[in-house]
């Protein structure tokens, strides 16, 4: 009798445990679904209330449905539609933005950068034709970047977190925007692998290369500088410090040639970029802390602390 009661209580406990687990598993899904449908509903209302023709409204909503089905976040779809309509962008362009992201997603590419460029371009009032061109080219660069990152990973460079591959694909795509050759990117991967570095280090190295190339260095100079740094065993933090060093040197009105020779001479002496940064910054400070913001005139003032 006593045994039966114990068994009954045990069964009830098991049932409660199973039910709780099921509810806990289902709750976040339900919340995500709810948040997603809220965003889409908002976008739908915006489209319905707009002065677009019936066909144009239907066209946007169809592309939105396709984007949702492809797995594009509902919030981003909603932002592209509402921001586009607010800016008076023609429906064909809004459809095009959604289609570019949907197609990229369908190819298994990370779409964060495409969505960011679209949302950013719309917010800044960039011409829709320009946004379309930029995002379509970016989509092509992402498609070209994916096999490069796959090769780097298959060469033994390990991802240290779930999003590392996607981050690296986006970084390589941005490098291609700056005309950095694919073989230089692959060579970076080989050098990182030789130093037993992670995909995070590869990502940071290519990112720094892109920043250099976008700041006035030739692609060749940027590649050479970063490859030397990888050979010297520079860390992700060192690469970040290299970028800060360049920015600080520019603030002192130094030329790019001065920056390059300064970096080279320090690398030859075997000095870490973080040490160099500490010496050159007025007042020093911890390099991984956000720098304190300065003040100036209206055109070029501001800062962050």
């Amino acid at each position, binding site marked *: 009798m006593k045994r039966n009661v114990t068994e009954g209580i045990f069964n009830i406990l098991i049932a409660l445990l*199973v039910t709780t*687990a*099921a509810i806990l*598993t*289902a709750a*976040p*899904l339900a919340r*995500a679904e709810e948040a997603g449908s809220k965003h889409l509903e908002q976008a739908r209302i915006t489209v319905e209330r707009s002065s677009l023709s019936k066909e144009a409204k239907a066209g946007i909503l169809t592309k939105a449905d396709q984007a949702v089905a492809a*797995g*594009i*976040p509902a*919030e*981003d779809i909603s*932002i592209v539609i509402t921001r586009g309509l607010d800016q008076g962008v023609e429906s064909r362009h809004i459809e095009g933005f959604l289609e570019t992201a949907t197609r990229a997603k369908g190819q298994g590419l*990370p*779409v*964060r950068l495409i969505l*960011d*460029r679209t*949302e*950013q*371009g*719309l*917010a*800044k009032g*960039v011409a829709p034709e*320009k946004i379309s061109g*930029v995002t379509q080219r*970016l989509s092509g660069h992402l498609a070209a970047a994916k096999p490069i990152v796959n090769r780097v990973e298959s060469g033994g460079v390990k991802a240290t977190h*779930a*999003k590392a591959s*996607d981050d690296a694909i986006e970084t390589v795509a941005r490098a291609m*925007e*700056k005309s950095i050759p694919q073989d230089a990117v692959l060579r970076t991967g080989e050098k990182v692998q030789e130093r037993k570095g992670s995909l995070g280090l590869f990502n940071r190295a290519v990112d720094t290369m*892109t*920043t250099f190339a*976008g*700041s006035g260095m030739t692609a060749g100079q940027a590649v050479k500088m970063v490859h030397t740094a990888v050979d010297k065993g520079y860390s992700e933090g060192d690469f*970040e410090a290299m*970028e*800060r060093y*360049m*920015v600080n040197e520019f603030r002192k009105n130094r030329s790019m040639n001065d920056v390059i020779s300064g970096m080279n001479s320090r690398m030859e002496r075997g000095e870490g970029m973080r040490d160099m940064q500490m010496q050159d910054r007025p007042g020093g400070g911890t390099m*991984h*802390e*956000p*720098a304190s*913001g*300065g*003040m*100036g*005139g*209206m*055109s*070029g*003032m*501001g*800062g*962050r*602390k």
Partner: protein
Amino acid sequence: MKDRKEIDRELIHRMLDGDLGPDEKKMLLDRVLADPALKEELDGIMGALHTIETSERMQAPPFFTAEVMRRLPARKATIANRIRDFLLKGRVLRWNMATAFAAAVLFALVFTQVVRTRNAPVKTVALSRQEQTVTVTMNLHAPEAHQVAVAGTFNKWKADAHILTKQENGVWTVSIPLKPGEYSYMFIVDGKAWVTDPNAETYRDDGFGNKNAVMRVRT
């Protein structure tokens, strides 16, 4: 030396097993006809066999062995034996369709969650991480401005999401809690002029011919 009865019984058992040759069969038949007691014994065995073969086969109830074992009086066990039994003793799992269905539903939910998490857009993945946030304060000295906002990757470039507050010295400021990571941003002065932070950590092309400021938030 075996006696006659033992030899007869051995012959009967071998006959039942189908092991007797023709000569032995004849010998047994003669013995049965000659000995009424032996005949009665053989008839009894044959009758029992017939009853077993023709009776209905009963199915043992589920968990018959486990039930029998459970009803046996429990032996007194030491604590060490109880622990050992708890850890190592074989168990019989009872189940029914309702339990199996509940388990299947649970498995499906967990499996769906895992698949969705893997394929989920970046935003969902980010939400699932329990990351610490860091409050970042952003400043812009713009004494002539009537309104200053900041937009960036942290607020999906919403121009009205983070409005700065003007201080007496003409510095506009705002504090934003952000997760560790890298963010591009620009200030928006009076709702129309996009201004790059001149004191940013580093800069990145925005893809449209301008430079975004970049901040790296660390724990």
